[in-house]
C-alpha cells in the first residue's frame, strides 16, 4: 500500500505506468511552439458541431477513444475515467463520455484538473481498485469565454495580465504495469487565497497555491530542486511564474534553472497575442500528453514535478466581491524509480 509522507504527500509502492497519452488541440495551439507534439490539430474550432459546448464534448470523446486505442486497449479494459473541464456541471466531460460505457468520476479542479485526475487515478491503481484508468481534462477558448467572460464578437480589450484559454484535451492511460514513465509521488494541494480579486490576473491568484504545494512537496519528501530535471507548473503564465519564483525564494528554494510553466510553453505571446500565456484545464493536459510525455520518452528529462494550478472562482463569486481561491496539485513523473 502507498505510504504517507508528511501531511500532503503519498508515495506509491508500485508506481502506476503512463501507458499511453493522446492530445487534441485547436487551430491556435496548432500554430504554437508545441505544435509538433500534438496528435490531432483541428482546423475548425467547432469541429463540424453546431455549438462550442458540443465541439468540446467531441474533443473529449475522440481524445479518450484515441488514448485507449494507443494503449492497445479496449474500453472494457478501462476501470474508471477521471475527468473534468471548466463548464457548468462538467458539460464537456459528461456529454463527451456518456456514450463510452466506462465508470466515470467527474472532477472540478479548474485548471488543476489534470493533476487531480492523475492523482486519484494513481491512488485507485496502487490501492488495488483498478488495473487501468483514463485521466483526462479539456477546455475550449470559445466555450470558456462564453461562460466566464464576454461574447466573442464583443469589441473589448483584454488586459496584459489576462491569459488565453487553450482549446484542447489531453488524456493519459495509467496502468498497474507498463513501460516508463511512472507516477511515483503525489502531493495534494490545499486551497490558498492571498486575496487577489482580479479574474483577469489568474496567474497572480494561483501563484501562492503553486508555491505552497511545491514547498509542501519538498518538506514532505525531503527532495530538493536538484532531484528534478524539470519543475513545470500548470498555467500561471509569465506573471504567475515570476511570483511563484519570488515566493519560493522567500522560503529559500531556488528553482529558477529548472522551472517553467505550461501556459508559457504552449503559446508564443508576441506573435500569438496571448498576453500572460495559456490557461484552462486543457493547457497542462495537452502539454503533459504531448510535450512532456514525448520528451520523457526521449530521455530529455528523467524526473519531473508536474504542478497544474487552478483558480477556483465562478463568475458569481467574482461579482459578489470574493477573492479567488487557488489550488495546485503536484505529481512526480519519472522514468526510473526505486
Amino acid at each position, binding site marked *: 500500500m502507498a505510504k504517507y509522507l508528511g501531511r500532503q504527500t503519498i508515495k506509491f509502492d508500485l508506481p502506476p505506468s503512463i501507458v499511453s497519452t493522446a492530445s487534441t488541440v485547436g487551430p491556435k495551439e496548432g500554430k504554437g511552439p508545441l505544435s509538433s507534439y500534438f496528435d490531432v490539430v483541428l482546423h475548425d474550432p467547432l469541429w463540424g458541431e453546431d455549438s462550442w459546448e458540443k465541439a468540446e464534448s467531441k474533443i473529449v470523446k475522440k481524445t479518450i477513444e484515441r488514448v485507449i486505442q494507443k494503449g492497445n486497449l479496449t474500453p472494457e479494459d478501462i476501470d474508471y475515467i477521471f475527468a473534468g473541464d471548466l463548464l457548468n456541471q462538467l458539460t464537456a466531460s459528461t456529454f463527451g463520455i456518456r456514450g463510452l460505457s466506462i465508470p466515470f468520476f467527474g472532477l472540478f479542479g479548474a485548471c488543476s484538473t489534470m493533476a487531480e485526475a492523475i492523482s486519484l487515478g494513481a491512488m485507485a491503481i496502487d490501492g488495488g481498485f483498478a488495473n487501468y484508468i483514463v485521466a483526462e481534462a479539456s477546455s475550449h477558448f470559445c466555450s470558456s469565454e462564453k461562460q466566464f467572460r464576454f*461574447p466573442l*464578437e*464583443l469589441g*473589448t*480589450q483584454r488586459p*496584459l*495580465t489576462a491569459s488565453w484559454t487553450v482549446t484542447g484535451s489531453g488524456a493519459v492511460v495509467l496502468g498497474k504495469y507498463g513501460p516508463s514513465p511512472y507516477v511515483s509521488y503525489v502531493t495534494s494541494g490545499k486551497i490558498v487565497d*492571498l*486575496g487577489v480579486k482580479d479574474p483577469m490576473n489568474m496567474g*497572480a491568484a494561483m501563484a501562492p497555491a503553486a508555491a505552497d504545494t511545491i514547498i509542501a512537496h519538498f518538506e514532505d519528501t525531503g527532495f530538493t530542486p536538484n532531484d528534478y530535471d524539470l519543475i513545470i507548473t500548470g498555467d500561471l503564465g509569465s506573471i504567475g511564474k515570476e511570483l511563484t519564483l519570488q515566493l519560493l525564494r522567500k522560503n529559500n528554494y531556488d528553482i529558477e534553472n529548472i522551472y517553467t510553466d505550461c501556459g508559457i510553453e504552449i503559446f508564443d505571446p508576441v506573435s500569438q497575442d496571448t498576453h500572460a500565456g495559456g490557461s484552462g484545464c486543457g493547457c497542462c493536459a495537452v502539454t503533459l500528453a504531448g510535450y512532456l510525455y514525448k520528451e520523457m520518452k526521449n530521455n530529455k528529462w528523467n524526473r519531473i514535478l508536474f504542478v497544474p494550478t487552478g483558480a477556483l472562482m465562478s463568475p458569481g463569486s467574482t461579482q459578489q466581491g470574493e477573492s479567488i481561491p487557488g489550488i495546485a496539485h503536484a505529481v512526480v513523473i519519472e522514468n526510473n524509480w526505486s
Partner: protein
Amino acid sequence: MSQIQDMKKEYSKMVEELSPKSNLLRDSARAFWVGGLICAIGQLITNIIKSFGYNHDEASMLTTIILVFLGIILTGLDIYDSLGKYAGAGTVVPITGFANSIVSPAIEYKKEGYVFGVGAKMFTIAGPVLVYGTIASVAVGIVHYFFK
C-alpha cells in the same frame, strides 16, 4: 489574523509590481482617432441626409439608424471585435458600440434558442446602460421641468 492580513498586503504589492500596465497614452490616442472617425462619419451622413431636404431632427434620427446598422453588420462580419481590441473606448462609446453590445450576445446565445437564448441574453451587456440611461433621462427631465 493580522499576520494573514500582512501577508495579503505584501503579496498584493508584489502582484502590483510584476503586473504589466497598459500603455495609457497609446490606448488614448487610438481611442481618440477611431472614436473621432466614427463621429465624423456620423456627421458626414447627417450632412448628406440634410442635403436631401430633411430637417435636423429627421437627419439625426436617420443617422442613428444607419450607424446602428453599420455596427451590426461589422459585428456579424467578425470585424467589430478586432476594431474594439485596437481602439477600446473609441469603439465602445459611439452608438455603433451599443449595437455591438446587443448583437454579440445575440449571436453567442442563438444556440440556446430564440426565447431563452437570443431574447433573454441579448441585453446582458447593454441592459445596465438601458436601465440607468433611462433612469438618468427621467431625472434630468424632472429637473428640466422645474428649473427651465
